[in-house]
């Protein structure tokens, strides 16, 4: 008996397991997605829309399932399980890209001259102390001239020449100069962003005056409630509430919550100590109330105290005799 005809007929009914397309389908197993980049076949699309869509979808699903079955599996009580690989499709980021910071005057100059930024070590080696000290800050190396016990005095110096003061003034002047330059950089950056972004000096002054006025209005005995209002005076606006950002690093949020919890734990403890009732107190380890009940056989702490003192007293008398 020749079954080849039957087999051929059966095979024709079953569609091919492998899908072949002009442009191969893009499969992202991690997201369980298939993308068909082939152009739509206009003829069959016009002829029978439903059938065409079905066949396209079927090809996609076939490819996806084939890729799923090629994954390594592990057995489980519910049947074999396959671990999906990490998705390969790049999703767009939720937030816009951060804008580049405006360059400072020095950065602009350095870029023009091709000066590379060198990282300056925060610590410097102190030959006298034989250890690393901070370049600035507490006990910083920049205060060495002010703190040394012996300083050279210039030949033409005044009688009241104070070397430490001169060095300190010079250092303070450097700090002030740096701060001034920083402010100038900020102003320049604000101007570069456009006149709308940078508030004019008049506007800043206006804001300052408004704030001062708001403070003075609430600085009377009645917090400004019974004061005569001037014509055209606006109602005071309250402070706007500010909240933490919705996304915080999980670690910081956890520590923040634990800190609040620790604060809460302290408060009831303080209240308890004020009352100082021995029966209600107790830690988690020892249930004091239960312990007292067991020890006094249900008579309470007062009975236990009486018993203890009476037995002690009798013992003491015995000792005297």
């Amino acid at each position: 008996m020749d079954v080849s005809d039957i087999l051929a007929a059966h095979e024709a009914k079953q569609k091919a397991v492998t899908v072949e397309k002009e442009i191969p389908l893009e499969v992202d197993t991690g997201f369980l997605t298939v993308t068909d980049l082939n152009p739509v076949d206009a003829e069959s699309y016009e002829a029978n829309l439903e059938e065409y869509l079905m066949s396209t979808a079927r090809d996609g699903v076939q490819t996806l399932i084939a890729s799923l079955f090629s994954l390594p599996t592990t057995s489980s009580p519910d049947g074999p399980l396959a671990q999906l690989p990490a998705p390969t499709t790049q999703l767009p980021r939720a937030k816009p890209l951060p804008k580049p910071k405006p360059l400072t005057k020095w950065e602009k100059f350095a870029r023009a001259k091709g000066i590379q930024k060198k990282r300056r070590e925060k610590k410097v080696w102190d030959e006298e102390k034989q250890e690393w000290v901070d370049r600035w800050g507490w006990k910083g190396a920049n205060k060495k001239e002010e703190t040394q016990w012996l300083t050279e005095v210039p030949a033409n110096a005044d009688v009241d020449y104070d070397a430490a003061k001169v060095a300190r003034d010079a250092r303070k002047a450097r700090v002030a100069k740096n701060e001034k330059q920083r402010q100038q950089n900020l102003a320049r950056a604000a101007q570069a962003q456009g006149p709308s972004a940078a508030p004019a000096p008049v506007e800043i002054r206006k804001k300052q005056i408004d704030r001062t006025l708001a403070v003075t209005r609430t600085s009377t005995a009645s917090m400004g409630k019974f004061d005569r209002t001037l014509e055209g005076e606006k109602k005071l606006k309250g402070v706007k509430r500010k909240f933490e950002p919705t996304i915080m690093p999980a670690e910081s949020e956890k520590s923040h919550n634990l800190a609040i919890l620790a604060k809460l734990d302290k408060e009831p403890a303080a209240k308890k100590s004020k009352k100082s009732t021995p029966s209600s107190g107790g830690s988690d380890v020892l249930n004091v109330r239960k312990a007292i009940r067991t020890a006094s056989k249900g008579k309470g702490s007062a009975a236990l105290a009486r018993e203890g003192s009476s037995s002690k007293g009798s013992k003491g008398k015995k000792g005297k005799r």
Partner: protein
Amino acid sequence: MRPLTEEESKAVFAKLANYIGKNIVHLIDRQDEPHCFRLQKDRVFYVSESSMRLAISVARPNLVSLGTCFGKFTKSGKFKLHITALDYLAQYAKYKVWIKPNGEMPFLYGNHVLKAHLGRITEDTPEHQGVVVFSMNDIPLGFGVTARSTVDTRKLDPTAIIVFHQADVGEYLRDEETLF
């Protein structure tokens, strides 16, 4: 959706501590996945960090719910626990009350627990302590506040109230519109 402020966190933790005591630490410091508390339209949700990150892309008016709703803030700033928090409360409860099968239905209809319906109670429960109410076969049914301490309950008559009802699983049906 936003994180809780310090006052709000305090209100929530103080209320939870009434039921689960120091076990709140297990809610905050979880081994499996970091979880956090978020406020959305007066409701406090306990949600895993990954779902919270997914939820930030939903606009506030469109966001109905996320994670587990623990309760809501009243207009006067008090925190009220909802029945939806029962899963966590039952898991970490410090003091428990078991009620007899004939007391289950009255409790699930929103009535207080009477002494006649009391099956078991955690030993040494103080007065006005938050307790989780279980059926005799250990299914959590709701929670409430004890009216008397365990010692005082012995002398009471059978119709006296032992646990004041606060929430029960019957609310899933009764308050379906407002619960979520």
